[in-house]
């Protein structure tokens, strides 16, 4: 397991450049992840690797190609000090786990990192770092395996106006 460390404000153009947006295949997208930004990523990333980033990870464009490419590359967990809103939700929807840890900055490449979501913390080199809880409705999606799986069995959803009809 390798830690890929990134800084603040990693945008979705950096994760997946605009010229590849007519591609949807996760594995093909993965070959272009961070192209021109960090070329060794696509070459060396292995299933189970973890991305650790600073503030506002995934800002900018709403392109779901970004989390899909990272998932296609074998990433399942991204730990960041904070996430941009659309990316956070897209990640959950495609089954990638975004973990908010305010102390993510203290993690360095080469560290061993374990995520204990039930305990609500990370274990980094034996040390415990707290993580922010995942909102309840998102947790439902995560435990279903993604939004597609969540929606699959449903014919209707309980819209907020329902009780007034």
């Amino acid at each position, binding site marked *: 397991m390798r830690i890929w460390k990134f800084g603040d404000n990693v945008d979705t153009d950096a994760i997946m450049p605009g010229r590849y947006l*007519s591609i*949807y295949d996760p594995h093909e997208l993965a070959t272009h992840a961070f192209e021109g930004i960090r070329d060794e990523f696509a070459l060396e990333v292995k299933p189970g690797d973890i991305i650790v980033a600073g503030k506002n990870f995934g800002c900018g464009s*709403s392109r779901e190609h970004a989390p899909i490419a990272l998932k296609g590359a074998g990433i399942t967990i991204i730990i960041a000090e904070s996430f*941009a809103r659309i990316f956070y*939700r*897209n990640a959950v929807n495609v089954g990638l786990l975004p973990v908010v840890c305010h102390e993510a900055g203290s993690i360095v490449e080469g560290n061993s990192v374990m995520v204990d979501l039930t305990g609500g913390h990370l274990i980094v080199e034996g040390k415990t770092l707290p993580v922010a809880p995942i909102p309840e*409705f998102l947790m439902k999606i995560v435990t279903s395996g993604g939004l597609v799986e969540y929606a699959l069995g449903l014919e209707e959803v309980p819209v*907020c106006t329902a009780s007034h009809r």
Partner: protein
Amino acid sequence: MGATVVEKIFSMKCHRDVNAGEVVMAPVDNAMIHDITGPLAIQKFYEMGGKRVHNPERITMLFDHQVPADSLEAAENQRYMRNFAKEQGIFNYDIREGVCHQVTMEMGKAAPGEIIIGADSHTCMYGAGGAFATGIGSTDMGFALKFGALYFRVPETIRVTANGVFKKRVGPKDLILSIAADIGADGATYQAIEFVGDTIEGMGMAGRMTCCNMAIEMGAKAGIVPPDHITWDYIRGMRNITPFPLKSDNDASFSEERMYDVTNLSPQVAEPHNVDLGVDVTKVAGKKIDQVFIGSCTNGRFEDFAEAAEVLGDRKFSDTTRVIIIPASRQEYLKTLRAGLIERFVMAGALVEAPCCGPCMGGAFGLLAPGEVSLSTSNRNFKGRQGSTEASVYLCSPATAAASGIYGEITDPREVE
């Protein structure tokens, strides 16, 4: 405790008091999909077991990012969406109308008090029309296509009050670039930004769209200008809605309040590679530029071209700079054409393209080579956004773009007589 305009919109939709922080499954009045995010949304709709979309009349479909199709993949994606539209009875604007956000607004698809979603981050632009509008990803869109509703966490609101009158050659883009520099790229994450004050009231729809469009550049979920007579005048004719009052209560609670006086604001330029790196134009004046782009959903309207043309006058653009001009929609194109401005731009040496996103996101044409510098009226200057990751993009207003195009270097538009 009073309510913010955003809380009021959700409360109206849900027929009960809804407060910031709550998560609600709210009905969606309109959902916009385009050629980049649409195919995946449709795929997700099917994967979710979708057969018929919830309501075809509440879906806006068009192609703008890679048009006319610039690759086989793009052509296939567009054909896939066309077929879906036919199958589901969705009206498809196809490649005819222009950039998604401009078209959604001018077709009257976003009215005050409505909840609008778009599979594109700059959907927040429709807040200029008094709607709550937010950008989402393709899987969320697939869900909304199926159910006609989506989960929302009702956001807190940052209220930005702008007062005063802009000096000549300074305008809405300069204001929003300076606000982005203050709030920062993530300063408004998960929140809405409400724009009020006499500067905003004095703006037409075009300027308000420029401001709301860039709310996402601060991480915001939505930007909104509470509707006034300008908003209602705009929506009248397209939609038959009786105007109603919609603004934040005096005792509403805001997560933050910011005040701006635009009287002494200078033209702003955002330096590479982040939108929140705005500085006074004087700090970067003299920087040589290879390409100028005037267009995009941020600044591709008639008002923007009128401002650029006024700065240009009878001059020509520099031989060392490529100037690309793209109206954001067919309607804006026609207005600009009829006012004689297209001819003026072409005479000056600009390349005028048909309505589309163009070089804004580096997907179709107008890409930058390594080491090249572009000055753009669009909304993002991330590394690689317009081509090579070794190119640089500066962001500015149409006036600054035109002035700089004349001299081939970043130029203070106030210095061009």
